[in-house]
């Protein structure tokens, strides 16, 4: 079957494929170009090479089970995906999240946003030939991922933010680590600003190329840094504040022309604001109720189970800190106290009948988290823009329908229009500045 461009293309022009396996196409997108020499007369973007049936899988998983799938949507900032999903469910259930958990969510979310922007600019600059920038940015991202890894236990597929709070408390030594990450990121941002923002080659390839007007951007459903680069003031964190963003002081950087350079520059400025948010949140975060020294002490699990057969044990149990629900002490600060929505602490599950009932009620088929009947839409500000979930619940333990509003999908749909009339070489920075993430685009 022939596609639109194959029908429309004139015989004398060259029809060429860019991608799907082309290093600058970030893996999984195909652009068919009708060229006159180097000039793009017409183009067609084909997506779907990374389609994994996310929405279909989710309809067949319980609300708790499908959380790891959300990691795999925008795989550069998985924590924001977790956040968007979890907060949608919380909106349906009406769960109150402790303030400490909210601050942890903000810190983790902003770190992910920085990692996302760093990756975008790194790739974009590298494809324009600035390999140094790529290395610098990846170096900064490593520091950020160190913090994320220490806290969540994983670099990319975190599944850290849970319904009712977060999985575990911050690492005892997180503060110094986070301060190092902030310091190093600031330094890299300064270096990169010096390398790129007044660089003649970079400016020639980005200034006044692929210009998008504010009207067009809104009509294409753009959100996030791409929309703000055109000068439209819209950020979910300001427009519909969630978590503790209301109490934090930050600005929304705006662009003027909506070209490639503005998209780069808005991202650079936004990272600085994210660093500011993290610093404020670090100061405002309430103290943790758990202490690190307690974690290692206690009796062996086998002994505790044996003892619990005779009477209820009061002693602490030595549990691996990686074990789900082992942080009983910290629960008060990081998880809601509503027992219906959280995994009971492992100590209770092992040693008390209430704990084991609670555990089974949570994981048994047909039980667990069951939001009330109805439909809900909730969105957060993701790395690329408004990341929203639309969930229809029929009162069972699985979503009846789950739809992800992926910001990428709307942004990439404008690519055909953006590159029209430009040269083949302009595709690379234009496409790079959009920050297409295959997992989110194709779902």
């Amino acid at each position: 079957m022939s596609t639109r461009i194959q029908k429309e293309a004139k015989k004398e022009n060259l029809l060429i494929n860019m991608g799907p396996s082309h290093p600058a196409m970030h893996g999984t997108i195909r652009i068919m170009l009708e060229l006159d020499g180097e000039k793009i007369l017409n183009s067609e973007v084909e997506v779907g090479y990374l389609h994994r049936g996310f929405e279909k899988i989710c309809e067949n998983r319980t609300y708790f089970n499908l959380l790891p799938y959300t990691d795999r949507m925008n795989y550069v900032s998985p924590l924001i995906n977790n956040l968007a999903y979890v907060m949608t469910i919380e909106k349906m259930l009406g769960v109150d999240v402790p303030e400490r958990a909210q601050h942890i969510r903000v810190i983790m979310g902003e770190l992910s946003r920085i990692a996302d922007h760093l990756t975008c600019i790194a790739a974009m600059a590298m494809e324009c030939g600035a390999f140094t920038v790529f290395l610098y940015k990846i170096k900064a991202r490593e520091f950020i991922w160190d913090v994320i890894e220490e806290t969540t236990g994983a670099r990319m597929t975190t599944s850290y933010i849970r319904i009712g709070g977060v999985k575990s408390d911050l690492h005892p030594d997180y503060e110094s680590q986070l301060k190092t990450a902030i310091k190093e990121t600031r330094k890299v941002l300064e270096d990169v600003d010096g390398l790129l923002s007044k660089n003649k080659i970079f400016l020639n390839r980005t200034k006044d190329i692929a210009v998008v007007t504010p009207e067009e951007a809104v009509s294409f459903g753009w959100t996030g840094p791409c929309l703000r680069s055109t000068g439209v003031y819209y950020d979910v964190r300001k427009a519909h504040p969630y978590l503790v963003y209301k109490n934090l002081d930050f600005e929304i950087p705006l662009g003027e022309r909506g070209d490639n350079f503005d998209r780069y520059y808005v991202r650079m400025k936004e990272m600085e604001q994210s660093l500011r948010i993290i610093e404020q949140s670090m100061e405002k975060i309430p103290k943790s109720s758990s202490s690190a020294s307690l974690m290692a002490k206690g009796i062996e699990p086998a002994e505790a189970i044996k003892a619990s057969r005779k009477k209820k044990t009061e002693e602490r149990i030595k549990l691996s800190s990686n074990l789900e629900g082992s942080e009983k002490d910290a629960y008060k600060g990081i998880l809601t106290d509503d027992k219906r929505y959280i995994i009971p602490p492992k100590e209770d599950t092992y040693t008390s009948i209430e704990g084991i009932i609670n555990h089974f009620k949570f994981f048994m088929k047909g039980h667990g988290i069951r939001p009330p009947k109805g439909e809900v839409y909730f969105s957060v500000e993701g790395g690329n823009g408004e990341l929203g979930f639309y969930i229809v619940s029929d009162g069972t333990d699985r979503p009846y329908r789950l739809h992800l509003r992926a910001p990428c999908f709307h942004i990439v749909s404008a690519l055909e229009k953006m590159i029209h009339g430009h040269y083949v070489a302009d595709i690379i920075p234009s496409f790079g500045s959009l920050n297409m993430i295959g997992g989110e685009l194709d779902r």
Partner: protein
Amino acid sequence: MEEKKILEELNEKFPQKIRETSKLFGDVAIVIERESLFEIVAFLKNKPYECNMLLDLTCVDYKGQEPRFEIVYHLFSVPNNHRLRIKTQLSEKDLIIDSLTSLWRNANWLEREVFDMFGVHFKGHPDLRRIFMYDGFEGYPLRKDYPLRKRQPRIPLRK
């Protein structure tokens, strides 16, 4: 309340066309007649409501109910900062609805996605093809009667 005002004015302007309005979990939803979708949405897009962004478009398959499909539009107004959910119902026998491609440019891909996943046709769409699935894919994967692990037949090599 901004939303309440919109609902009242809509009811006044389009009597009989609005089937139901509801507010659940803080989201305002309006169920409208299929025939007047374009008219109502175009009305909302203009001043004074200025729902100038099509935030999202999707479909829900209520298998076993009549009408079976429900198309869900999320509109957003950047200047006024309010969201609105518009829903309209389609029966399985007559799966066709007006395309919004002339109002919003992202409707093009969003409608292709709904066509791809549910088989809903959009009247007036310039290029209604599958978007995620390939040509030759059989069935519509997000319908409730499509099994999770269904296998597809092999397609011959393209020439």
